[in-house]
């Protein structure tokens, strides 16, 4: 009996040794945290799709430095607690060398302590200014700051000599962050915020707020939120026949907004990454080639338009690829190479990191776009 058991154990041991994957050509394990379900799914789903698409493309053309990339994706549903658990899992169990995501600022801030402690580089796809200000050694991000978006809008308002502005922001993290920026930067552009209204993320009717704004002296209305709220507001504005220019945030820079708002979307302007107007960019634009390729490939694979949000994941994966190719293998080396990235033409903009700047973009990452005949076009400055 015991000889038999010994033999069985021996065979198992042999199998275990043989099942060990070859030491050469080990895949590079990259972790990804996206909110594929939950309220921020409009961010997480295109991000996950894009990341998968880019990784497959890279692997098809030989991988990075001869090694394939293995993407381990966890769905956080926009929940900081889940993000925490998933991040710990990626670091301790899956032993990834870098993490991309999460999709929202709240989740990113929640996992930063784990990231810093484990010394794994993180490239977040969220936009909050707090993520990279103050600079944290291991944390980078690819989504444009909402501070930059506000600056872009205010720049144009100043050029148009508009000084009295009404703002209508959603009462969630994105909206309050935008509101903070709108209030903080106003005086730099000689702008006075004469009406500061809010609405709830699930509200279906904002005519009360728009009525109040209609009765005020506002010369322009800036609305800060993500779908569907701004679409309802656009309709309410048309219904109440409010004639002042209407600006939105980059939170609705997708075709979905035009679909929802219908005729009411005409003439609305907002700051957006260049991906929405890829075809109408001048050929001298360094991002044009990458943008058009991205839109085409996303359309082919997922049968829908690649948008601004998926672009954040594209940038994150490609930045990592660049860093690994330039000599990073270990998490620390990848981090160092990331920090040295200069002039990388991504979907969100042209990135240049430095020890003091882990966000890498300037306000030129945004262009002002306008809805004309149900399509996004570059707005005339």
């Amino acid at each position, binding site marked *: 009996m015991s000889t038999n058991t010994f033999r069985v154990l021996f065979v198992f041991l042999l199998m275990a040794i043989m099942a060990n994957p070859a030491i050469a050509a080990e895949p590079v394990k990259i972790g990804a945290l996206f909110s594929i379900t939950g309220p921020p799914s409009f961010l997480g789903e295109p991000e996950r799709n894009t990341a998968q698409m880019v990784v497959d493309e890279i692997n098809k053309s030989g991988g990075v430095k001869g090694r394939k990339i293995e993407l381990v994706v966890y769905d956080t549903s926009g929940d900081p607690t889940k993000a925490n658990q998933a991040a710990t899992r990626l670091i301790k169990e899956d032993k990834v060398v870098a993490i991309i995501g999460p999709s929202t600022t709240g989740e990113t801030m929640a996992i930063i302590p784990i990231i810093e402690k484990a010394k794994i580089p993180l490239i977040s796809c969220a936009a909050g200014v707090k993520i990279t200000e103050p600079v944290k050694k291991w944390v980078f991000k690819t989504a444009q700051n909402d501070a930059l978006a506000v600056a872009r809008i205010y720049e144009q308002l100043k050029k148009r000599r508009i000084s009295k502005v009404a703002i209508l922001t959603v009462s969630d993290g994105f909206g309050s962050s935008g509101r903070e920026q709108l209030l903080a930067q106003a005086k730099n552009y000689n702008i006075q915020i004469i009406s500061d*209204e809010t609405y709830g993320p699930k509200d279906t009717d904002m005519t*009360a707020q728009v009525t109040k704004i209609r009765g005020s002296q506002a010369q322009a209305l800036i609305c800060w939120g993500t779908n569907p709220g701004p*679409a309802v507001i656009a309709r309410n504005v*048309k219904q109440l026949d409010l004639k002042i220019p209407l600006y939105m945030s980059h939170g609705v820079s997708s075709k979905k907004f035009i679909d929802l708002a219908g005729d009411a979307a005409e003439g609305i302007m907002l700051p957006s990454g260049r991906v929405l107007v890829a075809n109408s960019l001048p050929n001298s634009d360094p991002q044009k080639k990458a943008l058009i390729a991205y839109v085409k490939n996303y359309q082919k694979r997922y049968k829908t338009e690649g948008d601004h949000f998926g672009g954040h994941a594209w940038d994150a994966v490609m930045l990592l690829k660049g860093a690994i190719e330039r000599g990073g293998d270990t998490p620390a080396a990848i981090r160092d190479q990331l920090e040295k990235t200069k002039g990388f033409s991504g979907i969100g903009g042209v990135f240049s990191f430095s020890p003091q700047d882990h966000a890498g973009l300037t306000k030129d990452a945004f262009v002002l776009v306008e809805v004309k005949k149900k399509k996004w076009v570059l707005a005339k400055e």
Partner: protein
Amino acid sequence: MENSDQILQYILSGLSNGSIYALIGFGFAIIYNATGIINFAQGEFVMLGGMLTIFFLNVFQLPLLTSIALAVGVSTAIGIVFERLAIRPLKNASPLSLVIITIGASILIRGTAMLVWGKDTHALPAFSGNDPLYLMGATMLPQNLWIIALTAVIIMASKLFFHYTIFGKAMRACAFNSQAASLVGISVKTMVLLSFMISSAIGSLAGIIIAPLTMTSYDMGIMLGLKGFCAAIIGGMSSGLGTVIGGLLLGILESLGAGLISSGYKDAIAFIILLIILFLRPEGVFGKKETERV
């Protein structure tokens, strides 16, 4: 600042929203009066109305009216299935258990809608265009007028139904005293089924007429259902004018509050009103009048 214009605008918007709350509250009241339970899945039928119409419109390319009719039909069918499978087998359960079952059903319907149609928001085209109409300094969309008009029609129709048809009177009899009703030969089970059918139909219609303004998604039923419930409580769960006035009052107060006090607290206003009513006058503002609990 043209203050009076603004107030008129708030009131008109409030009337439009209030009509929807009134319709939904109606659905709550009808089922409550027939069975003694609060059907918390009522909001989901509102959602189903809008989503199904969009589904038939976009996927099968049917004309608007056909889509609406089909959507109401399917919602009613779902209401029947719900009643048969979840309510009828448990006739002797306590009302509390039945309420919890309706909450469970609402989660089920919402989850299924999310799986079938995704989490996206969808827009329904307005019934007669998007150009605003001007009324004494305030503006309304044609859709707002549709909402108010259709609500009035539905309320009047149900008034006629409940008071002048045999089925309506039978339902009122059940609400009054189900044992006595069954003794005189009224099938209480059928009346309960009928109440669910009417509630689902009215609920889905409410969802359809508001969808062009608010757009629909799989979870629009939650808030609307709760506010409709508030309207019904304010009206004392009456199947008549009480709930209608409750709904309109709620809509107007909400709109005035958001415009004059603070827009951030819009939802809070509805629930504050509910709490005040429950503390001060739990039988509803019109409770006393409706001793017959129709």
